[in-house]
């Protein structure tokens, strides 16, 4: 990674060559994960804290497994069982953890920009594991890795991102990454869930018609409806959302070509994605999860690599 890259806060800050280096390193780590001994000693001198201020299953387990495969020492922190409940500030918590000689912080937080704030105040390397509605860079990287694995290259690949664009950090990170790597991006969802200024700034195409998006794309990355981030009703009901935007087998059967289905998880079955599509032959959802470990190994390996003086 370029020496300027000290943290992974978002895809926005990365150059094309940084992304390529992460993805090519991840490919080598994926091979490591097929070996009888799936562990390398690269990070045995590195201690990492997983700081999760928001719930997570996949991302957290994936990071922890990646750290263990790299031989790093790992400590885990959940806000719900910690002194954050007693009112300790984020900065105080992290400073206390760092005084125990921790080198890297993997952080998820419900506030957008929390890892950026931390990066300005502490000397450790920071990996953003999702901040509010801003970015989820490792998810975009593993999505890209999975697409490259399937299609060979991102250049010219048509990717439809369907669903709750407004509240999705996965969508934002994916849009940044895909645009930087030369893919074509179209977002699709109810008008209330697609912020107009955002898609204009990122120069991605927009459609409010799911059939049109599916007909156009090679890959549909289907997003979860994030009810926990919606302070007001943005569509009338989950049932109506499913009827208008849900990816169903009937919708896929109408297409002239078969398309690849992705989802960052957790899936709301029967809302944005029907079960027979999620579990169907064109779904690479579990490949995404598998690739997540290799991609996160690459990110932490590369961030630990340069002289961090």
């Amino acid at each position, binding site marked *: *990674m370029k020496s300027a890259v000290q943290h992974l806060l978002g895809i926005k800050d990365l150059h094309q060559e940084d992304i390529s*280096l992460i993805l*090519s*390193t991840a*490919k*080598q*780590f994926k*091979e*490591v994960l097929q*070996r*009888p*001994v*799936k*562990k*390398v*000693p*690269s990070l045995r*001198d590195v201690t990492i804290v997983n700081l999760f201020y928001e719930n997570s299953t996949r991302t957290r387990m994936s990071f922890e497994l990646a750290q263990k495969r790299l031989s790093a020492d790992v400590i885990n922190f959940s806000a719900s069982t910690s002194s954050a409940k007693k009112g300790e500030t984020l900065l105080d918590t992290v400073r206390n953890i760092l005084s125990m000689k921790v080198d890297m912080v993997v952080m998820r937080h419900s506030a957008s920009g929390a890892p950026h704030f931390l990066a300005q105040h502490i000397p450790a390397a920071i990996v953003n594991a999702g901040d509010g509605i801003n970015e989820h860079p490792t998810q975009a990287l593993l999505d890209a890795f999975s697409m490259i694995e399937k299609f060979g290259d991102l250049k010219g690949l048509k990717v439809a991102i369907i669903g709750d664009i407004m509240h999705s950090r996965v969508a934002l990170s994916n849009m940044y990454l895909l645009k930087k790597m030369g893919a074509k991006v179209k977002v699709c969802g109810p008008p209330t869930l697609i912020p107009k200024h955002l898609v204009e700034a990122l120069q991605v195409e927009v459609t409010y018609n799911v059939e049109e998006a599916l007909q156009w794309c090679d890959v549909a990355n289907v997003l979860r409806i994030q009810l926990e981030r919606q302070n007001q009703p943005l569509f009338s009901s989950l049932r109506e959302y499913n009827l208008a935007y849900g990816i169903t087998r009937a919708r896929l059967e109408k297409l002239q070509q078969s398309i690849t289905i992705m989802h960052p998880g957790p899936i709301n079955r029967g809302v944005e994605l029907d079960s027979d599509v999620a579990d169907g032959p064109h779904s690479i959802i579990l490949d995404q999860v598998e690739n997540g470990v290799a991609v996160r190994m690459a990110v932490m*390996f*590369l961030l*630990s*690599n*340069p*002289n961090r003086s």
Partner: protein
Amino acid sequence: MRNILSGKQLALTVQRLAQHILEDQLTSSEIVLIGIQPRGVLFSDRLYQAIQAIEPSKQVNYGKLDITFYRDDIRKELHVANATDVNFSIENKQVVLVDDVLYTGRTIRSAFDALLAFGRPAGVKLCVLIDRRFSREFPIQPDYVGKSIDSLFSQKVKVFWEENSLEGRVEFL
């Protein structure tokens, strides 16, 4: 720039090493050859080819090993990982590890660690094209040597191969 090995001489050296490995492993059912990425593989590709040309009926398991994740200087600078391709078990096998230039021995030390991720070999032998004598930082010695040379710490030794050929040249840079 000073020449160490060149042209036909290099091809003969590769063939001699192939003969030597075959001679040693005559009674074993197969040969396990593993080249170290990236530059050792350019040599091991040719060694593999030479072994097959001499003894086409001998089974040779040929793999490529990247040692980036096992290096002891991983924090000093950025090392870009190359592909590892060892799609067989080395459990109880005699392994011949192949690199082009043996210098401090640190790469080979790392390669031992990397190798053990694929099983516990019965034994490991080391084949190098060039042995830079008296410069080892670890107690590692080669079993098959193309040519031993004396060199200064400040000198660099590099092997250049001609495409699809056992020929090439080895030079001080």
